């Protein structure tokens, strides 16, 4: 029997089953509701069979094409994973996003996490740092150390990584508009300890496009911002071959309310834009593309999330090879970090968040992530306490060592449901790519507010579903719109040392007093000159940082030359 005959046979059998067995059951026991939907409000079928994954691209319906859709792990199109042995070889990096208050406090938290088995660092910066303001800037008022650690100069960076083996461990830094400056501080701090930049491994997020789309922590307009990004690509390619110069991020797009397909589509479309920008600069795609990395969200809907991760790898590999002509298989790889969904955490009954996070983390692992952050149960309320963050880390360790899921590669491959969802995810992404291309690529689409509007629509729909759940039964959030309890909150909340801000201001004043201020002025002047030209700015930033020019001073130069960006208000 050939494929077509087999499929016809199944189709016939399915029809028979629906008329007899299924109908009988439905008559006696109707289903819980008329339609079932995913977290992204996409419909879910009752049952998936070989019919749902049959290749319908040609008139001759054929069965699932294993080689074309999946292949083998470590080989094109990488659906099953980027490494041939996946977690049998090496577990994912357990990388907990952390930072608060002063560099001293955060350094202590890093050591605590490393002691408890974390395998990579991930730095959270406070709001002023993310906007390129020093801790004593008037704009920073009230924001010091609240959402992350404050870093204003090389002196803070030295303290932040004190006693941490930067030559062995990889460090990820969630920083975007000022990414080049913070990266330079990391490089300079390592240099002072005798660690040359070529051995440094880690990631700067550096994904400015998703800032305009979702996270909104931009300083400059898209054009100068893209220049800074490509400067880091170029510099990294030459001098830091182990560094991921960008982490193209869907996480924040999802947190802003996007569906899984929107997260996937907008993130990859951002990725294409960066590849285009690198090529336009004259870089060889196979030189910089292997250092592009990604970052996704792991939300509640288990199979939908796994499908998203698998589709992401397949699309990226194909586009890099077919569209951008990359020849190095490493350029085809999509390597990504995952964070469980912060927006899924509830302030009500926070203990339940441990369970949510575990399910989401499991989806990330079954989706083949390279590194993972698991949220702490208290993060809908505040930054995580030590106890909460330890449970979150332990969740990863239990998945890694007890669940057995890490012992085999891509165990859900071939599931009719997962493969069908993977295909659908891919189709939805391509539909968005077409719309984005028609707007002139992602930069044009952002200018017109297209992804922003799509996300806002999804966010609003999701909220309305939650609000209407008692009527529809369609969007139950345990502890929020059902299964409520009146118990008061009992979990302890992290206290940030209020004295920290004073100490930070003192250190900043000392840095400004003790550094060679003439040298700083000269280097800022050189940076200003370079910013007017088309030269790569990284060497100038690095020189300024080495002389202890502050983040605010360096970004101040850019603010002067590039101006600040105001987004169009879209509601």
């Amino acid at each position, binding site marked *: 029997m050939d494929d077509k005959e087999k499929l016809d046979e199944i189709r016939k059998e399915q029809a028979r089953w629906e008329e007899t067995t299924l109908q009988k059951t439905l008559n006696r026991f109707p289903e819980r509701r008329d339609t079932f939907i995913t977290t992204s409000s996409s419909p879910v079928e009752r049952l998936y069979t070989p019919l749902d994954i049959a290749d319908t691209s040609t008139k001759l319906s054929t069965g699932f094409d294993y080689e074309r859709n999946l292949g083998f792990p470590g080989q094109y199109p990488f659906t099953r994973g980027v490494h041939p042995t996946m977690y049998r070889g090496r577990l994912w990096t357990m990388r907990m996003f952390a930072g608060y208050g002063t560099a001293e406090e955060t350094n202590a938290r890093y050591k605590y996490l490393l002691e408890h088995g974390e395998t990579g660092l991930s730095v959270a910066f406070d709001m002023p740092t993310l906007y390129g303001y020093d801790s004593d800037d008037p704009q920073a008022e009230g924001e010091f150390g609240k959402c992350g650690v404050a870093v204003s100069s090389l002196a803070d960076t030295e303290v932040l990584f004190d006693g941490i083996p930067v030559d062995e461990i990889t460090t990820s830094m969630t920083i975007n508009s000022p990414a080049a400056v913070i990266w330079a501080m990391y490089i300079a701090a390592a240099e002072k300890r005798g660690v040359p930049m070529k051995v440094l491994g880690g990631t700067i997020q550096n994904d400015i496009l998703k800032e305009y789309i979702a*996270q909104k922590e931009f300083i400059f307009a898209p054009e100068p911002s893209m220049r800074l990004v490509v400067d880091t690509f170029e510099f990294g390619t030459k001098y830091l071959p182990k560094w991921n110069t960008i982490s193209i991020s869907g996480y924040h797009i999802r947190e802003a309310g996007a569906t899984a397909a929107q997260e996937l589509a907008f993130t990859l479309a951002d990725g294409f834009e960066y590849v285009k920008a690198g090529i336009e600069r004259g870089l060889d795609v196979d030189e910089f593309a292997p250092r592009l990395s990604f970052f996704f969200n792991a939300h509640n809907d288990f199979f939908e999330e796994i499908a998203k991760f698998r589709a992401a790898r397949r699309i990226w590999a194909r586009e890099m090879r077919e569209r951008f002509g990359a020849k190095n298989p490493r350029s085809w790889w999509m390597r990504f970090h995952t964070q469980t969904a912060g927006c899924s955490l509830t302030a009500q009954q926070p203990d339940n968040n441990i369970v949510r996070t575990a399910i989401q983390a499991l989806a990330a692992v079954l989706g083949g992530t390279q590194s993972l952050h698991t949220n702490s149960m208290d993060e809908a*309320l505040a930054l995580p306490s030590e106890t909460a963050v330890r449970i979150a880390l332990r969740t990863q360790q239990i998945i890694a060592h007890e669940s057995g899921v890490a012992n085999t590669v891509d165990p859900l491959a071939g599931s009719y449901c997962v493969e069908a969802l993977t295909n659908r995810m891919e189709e939805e992404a391509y539909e968005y790519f077409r719309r984005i291309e028609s707007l002139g690529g992602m930069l044009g689409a952002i200018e017109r507010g297209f992804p922003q509007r799509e996300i806002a629509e999804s966010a609003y729909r999701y909220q309305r579903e939650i*609000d209407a759940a008692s009527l529809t039964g369609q969007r139950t959030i345990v502890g929020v719109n059902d299964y409520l309890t009146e118990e008061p909150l009992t979990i302890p909340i992290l206290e940030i040392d209020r004295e920290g801000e004073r100490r930070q201001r003192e250190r900043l004043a000392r840095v400004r007093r003790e550094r060679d201020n003439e040298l700083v002025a000269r280097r800022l002047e050189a940076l200003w000159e370079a910013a007017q030209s088309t030269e790569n700015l990284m060497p100038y930033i690095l020189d300024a940082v080495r002389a202890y020019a502050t983040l605010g001073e360096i970004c101040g130069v850019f603010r002067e030359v590039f101006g600040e960006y105001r987004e169009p208000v879209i509601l």
Partner: protein
Amino acid sequence: MPGKKIRVLIAKPGLDGHDRGAKVVARALRDAGMEVIYTGLRQTPEMIVEAALQEDVDVVGLSILSGAHTTLFPRIVNLLKENGLDGVLVLAGGIIPDEDVPALKELGVRGIFGPGTSTEEIVRFIREEVNPSAGSGHRP
């Protein structure tokens, strides 16, 4: 005056760019028949109060998730008072720890809506607290 729409300013003070909640609430209030003005991001207390004056609003909704509310909210509320906008209903949403709530209420932030609040609850609260036919004192 029947039919007069409740006017609401939704504002994002401070540096944080998390605007999902602000936008969702703005849409919900609009769908509930209110007139909604959204300030956009990174608004200083001065900008917010200026917008409240210009737009002649009945309600100011402040959305903040960065933890800077303890610094920024008192400045906003005091500026509103200084500008004769005592009658404006001030609400807050975002991540605001329970322990900060009594002080904010004391200050004059009448409604504080944390994660998990339904939009209907906010609509209901505003309708109960604002009586547009009685006027807020500064309306023509």
